[in-house]
Structures are given as structure tokens and as C-alpha cells.
């Protein structure tokens, strides 16, 4: 038996943890670009686009006038007033976990709690730009430890499935958003190799989902092809951050819940439709009918799925 509130907390615990990790990756990539020689970042507002990719424009603009490196990092890493900052995500993940400790294995709880104990005492003046890469790496490791503890110690029952739904709905949202913010660089522009700047942008995009090496193994082209990059992050079922992979996982979690509870719910129909759409799609058609439109619909559907799950399983 699982309380609706417990299910909700498990869902959000995993979701915030995933969000913290994604945020760390995003900042990591922007920071990398900021270290590159000028021509590669001349005609773009890197840090501004980071704020947009992180979906934090509203909170950022309320506080800052310029998207300087310092301001953006400040806002996305330790700002308590930004609900999506790494600090806020970790705090929410931990508070959700704390509220449902009885539903967590000791290993899962300790991974959450130790992370928060260390992070909560960190001051912004301790996070100079020389410390930033190490810090972001640490955040990713803590998230991976949490994931490992979950996969390695959680009983495969409803409580586990709710945490997986939270994690993969967040991951799908994150991949779709990053693609949508950068979709213009992925649009086909006729034949010929991309410029050095294009290539660098594609590489950054892949890096922000930890996929630049994997891309090499999956696609044997010597340079990046934008439609391959898009294909990889949307439709390649082997890529663990692709939309189709996330929806395959979501569908499986919902199927397992359905088996355990012996009843189906409306959200599952939606999730399955999304999965089918991704399975039968090819990039050519998607580009034809509009990449941006496709991604917008996907993000909307993904949000509706969250509300449907919340309603079906009595989240408070």
C-alpha cells in the first residue's frame, strides 16, 4: 500500500535529482564555451541562451539586467530564490525523500542526505570559477550515486515505478527543451559541410546531454551531421537521454504499475501514443512538418502526462 502523498514525493524526489544533474551539465557546457577563443562565441549570447535552456528566464530577469557569466552561474547554482537552481533542486529532492523515508532504502536516503549536508553549507564565495568544474562534476556524481542506489536497492514495486516516472519525465522534458532552444542550428541548410562554428555548436549540444562520445560510436560520420544529431537525441532507442528511450522507460513503468494495480489509467494511453509517434517517426518527416512544432507538442504532452499521473494516483 502506498499513500498518494508518498507516491508524489517519490516522483518529485527523483525528478528534482534529475533536474539538478541536467542543470550541472548545462552549466558545464556553457562554461566550456566561455573558455573558447572568441570567434566561436562571437555572434551568440552564450550565457543568455543557457538561462533560456534552463527555463529560468522569469526568475533571472526579475533579479538581473545582464546575463553575465557571474550572474548566470550565481542564479543557476546556489540561488535559493530560483526553484530550479542546483541548490534548490537538491534541497527539494532531499526534503521529498525525508518526508517519505519509510519508503526509501537506507542507501537511497544516505545518498540524498549526504549530498544535501555538504551542499547546504556551501557559500557562493567558495565557488570561484576555478572551483566550478569540480563542483559540477561532484553534482553529477552525487546524482549518479542516487540513481545507482535506486536501481541497486529499491524493491521493484509501485514506489520504484513512481520514482522512475519522475526521473524520465524530467529527462524527456530536459532533452526536448535543449533541442527546442537550439533547433535552428539543427535545421538542414542544403549540402556541404557545416562551418566550424556549426560543428562546435552541435558538439556542445551533444555534450550537454553527455552524448558527444556516444555519438561517435553510434554514427560513424567523421564530422557532425545535424540531422543525425537530432535523430540521436530524439529517435535513437539506444541513447539513454533520447526522447524515445525516456518514453520507452515511462511506458514500461506505467505497464508495471498497471499490472501491480490491475487497472489502467488515462495517462498510459497518452504515454503509449507518444511512444508510438516516436517509434514510427523519421527525421525527414519531422523536419518537413516542423521540428519546433514537434518539440512543442512533445513538451506539452509530457506536462499533461504529469498531471494525469498526479490525478490518477491521488497526488495531493
Amino acid at each position, binding site marked *: 500500500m502506498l499513500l498518494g502523498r508518498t507516491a508524489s514525493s517519490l516522483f518529485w524526489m527523483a525528478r528534482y535529482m534529475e533536474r539538478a544533474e541536467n542543470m550541472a551539465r548545462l552549466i558545464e557546457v556553457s562554461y566550456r564555451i566561455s573558455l573558447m577563443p572568441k570567434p566561436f562565441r562571437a555572434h551568440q549570447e552564450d550565457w543568455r541562451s543557457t538561462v533560456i535552456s534552463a527555463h529560468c528566464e522569469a526568475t533571472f530577469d526579475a533579479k538581473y539586467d545582464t546575463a553575465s557569466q557571474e550572474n548566470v552561474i550565481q542564479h543557476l547554482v546556489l540561488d535559493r530564490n530560483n526553484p530550479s537552481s542546483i541548490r534548490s533542486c537538491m534541497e527539494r529532492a532531499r526534503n521529498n525523500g525525508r518526508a517519505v523515508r*519509510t519508503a526509501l532504502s537506507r542507501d537511497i536516503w544516505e545518498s540524498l542526505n549526504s549530498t544535501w549536508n555538504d551542499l547546504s553549507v556551501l557559500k557562493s564565495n567558495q565557488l570561484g570559477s576555478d572551483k566550478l568544474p569540480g563542483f559540477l562534476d561532484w553534482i553529477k556524481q552525487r546524482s549518479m550515486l542516487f540513481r545507482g542506489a535506486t536501481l541497486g536497492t529499491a524493491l521493484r514495486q509501485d514506489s520504484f515505478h513512481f520514482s522512475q516516472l519522475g526521473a524520465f519525465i524530467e529527462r524527456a522534458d530536459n532533452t526536448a527543451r535543449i533541442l527546442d532552444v537550439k533547433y535552428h542550428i539543427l535545421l538542414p541548410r542544403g549540402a556541404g559541410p557545416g562551418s566550424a562554428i556549426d560543428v562546435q555548436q552541435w558538439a556542445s549540444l551533444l555534450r550537454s546531454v553527455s552524448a558527444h562520445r556516444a555519438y561517435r560510436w553510434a554514427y560513424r560520420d567523421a564530422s557532425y551531421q545535424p540531422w543525425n544529431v537530432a535523430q540521436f537525441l530524439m529517435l535513437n532507442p539506444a541513447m539513454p537521454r533520447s526522447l524515445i528511450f525516456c518514453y520507452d522507460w515511462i511506458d514500461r513503468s506505467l505497464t508495471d504499475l498497471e499490472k501491480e494495480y490491475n487497472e489502467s489509467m488515462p495517462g498510459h494511453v497518452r504515454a503509449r501514443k507518444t511512444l508510438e509517434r516516436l517509434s514510427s517517426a523519421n527525421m525527414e518527416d519531422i523536419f518537413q512538418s516542423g521540428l519546433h512544432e514537434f518539440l512543442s507538442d512533445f513538451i506539452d504532452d509530457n506536462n499533461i502526462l504529469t498531471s494525469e499521473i498526479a490525478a490518477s494516483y491521488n497526488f495531493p
Partner: protein
Amino acid sequence: MGENFNEMLEADGSVRAPYALLHKWLEKQTPGDLRAKIKEAESIFRRLGITFAVYGTEEASERLIPFDIIPRIFAASEWRRLEAGIAQRVGALNAFIDDIYHRQEIVRAGKVPADLILQNEAYLPQMAGHSPARNVYAHIIGTDIVRVGADEFYVLEDNCRTPSGVSYMLEDREAMMFLFPDLFAKHRVAPIEHYPELLRQTLDSVAPPQCEGEPTCVVLTPGIYNSAFFEHAFLADEMGVQLVTGDDLFIDDGWLYMRTTREPVRVDVIYRRIDDDFLDPLTFNPASTLGVPGIFDIYRAGRVTIVNAPGAGIADDKAIYSFMPGIVEFYTGDKPILNNVPTWRCSEKDDLSYVLDHLEELVVKEVHGSGGYGMLVGPTSSKKEVATFREVLKKRPSNYIAQPTLALSSCPTFVKSGVAPRHVDLRPFALCGDKMRITPGGFTRVAMKEGSLVVNSSQGGGTKDTWVLED
């Protein structure tokens, strides 16, 4: 009351029997060894999240309760006497509450003044005439006991509402077994880890009469920002029952349910860790969002058991405390085994003038306070503090009681300067359901500051593992 009683060492320096092995072991430890063990213990507690929130600080921060790694030890014979005393007292407290909410024989007999009951904030008129399952009201009781001599124990306070600390008792033991397995191998320490099972059995045994089949029990918490949240989660987890907040519960057609991911599940027994006032906005504080609207009505209808019962606090009221010897005798027919501390009621004129004349040597407490807030410890307070308190006391004398400063016993404790005696008290836990279940030992609190008598964790007190040796 003379010299403080040292639980390890006699006045002549010889070692008391229960501490014989520990004393030898302690002599072999260097401060460095012990310091390393403390560090290890703290990192375990911090990682597990065994913290409590401190109210009134700038931020509601989470802190560790200082843990002392030197155990406190009772001989089996010492414990047997304490246990008998606690059982007697707990039995009397439940009989007293039952009587207060029914015929009030004790008032008719003139042993307790009617005003003290009827005008007491802890008395709930809504409980009058209600008989809960097995006529038990205070199911979980923490009896605060201090020792002043080899055979001299006093009950400082009975906690009949929602006594906390049991999770520290259990986790301190876990930590000690992890840190010092060799010490346990040398001693025969009575186990305590079955407390959660005993608690579960107690809750099951007081299921309401209308419950059919296996009762469903839950722990009701105010939430993660409550100072004792860790304990609430810990007990629910150890008992294998749900930890719920008020909004997980609802009433439908006269029964209590919890909201789950599937069908609602009926709840039979609530171990609540929220105060009476917050239980039911329809019956008590209408502003409360922590409780369940309408729960009191179905409680009265015998469809759910609330543990401890609403209104049980009348028995641990500090104004009632001074009547306890008479109460024990009235219901058990025997003299109390455990002493009461002599108490002056500031509501009474003669008592008040005595207290005002002797403030420097007395402990003055709020009748309804808890946790060491708003009290005066005369001997350790400055002249200025005493003077300020005198004015406070004069304004609302009936709000206070006073007691002599007891020479609390001390136990060896590891502090900055090494191993030194520090004052301690003891809170054993008694469970009352189909029968009485008392866990050997309890929660020892220690004042970490030299000479200090204030052991409350909110005031910097620490904890110790408490051992009862088996014969």
C-alpha cells in the same frame, strides 16, 4: 542534599560494581581514541539524518544532539526496582485519567481539588464519559527520573502526551554496538532493539472495538519541519506502518481512511505525534491544518483509537504532579515505590512566599511548559536573572511550581578535558495496552557543561546509551 552521587565511583575512589569492567576499559583508552570514536559516531548520525530542529534560532536548523560514547550502567537489581516503580505509577496514571473523565471518585474523596481538574487547560470536557479501548489513555509514557543516591530516585515528571526520545535510545544503542563491539562482548546488556515491535503490539492491542480483522495502524506527524520528525519516520519505518500527515487522512461515512494510490484504506489506530489542540479543527483549534476534521466524533464513536488519548495530558500536568503520591496510593492501595520531588505550588499563598524567599536555591518551572524553556535554575543563575524572574513570577504566580534543586547523580562523560563526571537524568519508556511493556534502560540525557543541571537537548544537553546488566 550534600555531595552529588557519582554512579561510577564511591566517595573513597573505589569503583561501583556495575561499572567495574567499564572502568578498567576506560583506563586503557587514550583521549585520542575516544575522540576518534566520537567523530565516527557523529558522522554516522549526520549521514543517517538523526537530527532535531531547534526552535527560536535564526533559521530552523537541523542539529545533532551531542552523543556521549561512555554508557551509563544499571545493575539488574537497581533496574528491577525502577521498573516496579514505573509500572505502579503508570498504572495509577491511567486509572486516574479514567476516573477524571468518568465518576471523579478522587475528587469526591477530597484527594485532588476539583478546580485543579476542571479549570485545567489539559482537561478536555469533550472526553467526559468516553471509554477508549481497554480503558487505556496514556499508552506511551516517558517517566523522567533523577537519581540522588545509591537507592534514592525521584520522578521529576510524567510525560503522558507524546513523549519523544525513544529513537535516540535505539540509535544510541546501534551506534555503540557498531563502535564498541568488544564492550558488549564483555557485558551482558539487556537488549532494547525490540521496542518498535512492542510498540506495534501495544497499538494493535488497543484497536477500537469496531475494528474487524488485523488493525491498520499509522503514525501521524506534523511534517518534516517538526523537531522530532526523525523519530516519527524512524518509528513508522521500524514498525512497518505508514507515516501520515493530516492531509493523507479523511473521513468518509463515519470511518477514517487514508488516501493511497489506489482505493482508500481504513485506519484503526493512530499513533499521533501532534498535540490535542491540533487533532481536529472541528472540535479543538479551528485554525489547525495538521489534524483531521471530524476525527474526534468517530473517536468517540469507537471507530478509531487515538494514541495517546486526547486529554491524557491532565495526568502529567505540573500542577497535578504534587498530588501524585496520593494519586498512586488512591488507585493502587500501596505506597509509591518511586519518590516525588517535594513541590511548592506558587498558586498557594504560603508556598509562593516561601518560593520568593528562596529563589536562589530552587528550580522554578512553568506549569505547562516543556523542554526547559522559561524556567529558572536558582543556584546557577546570576543575581540579575533571579531578579528578572522574580518579577515574572509575581505577575502570574499560578503559572509556576517550584522544587528544591536536586543533587543529580553524575556519570563519566567524555568532554574536552577528558573523562569527567557530568549530571544525568533518565527517561524510561513504558507501553500500556493489553499489558505493560517496559524497555530496560531508557533515554539518558546528560548536561555536557560542568556543574550544569539542565539536560534538555534544546539547551545543549547530550545523550548516552543506557545499559541494564543482566544477572
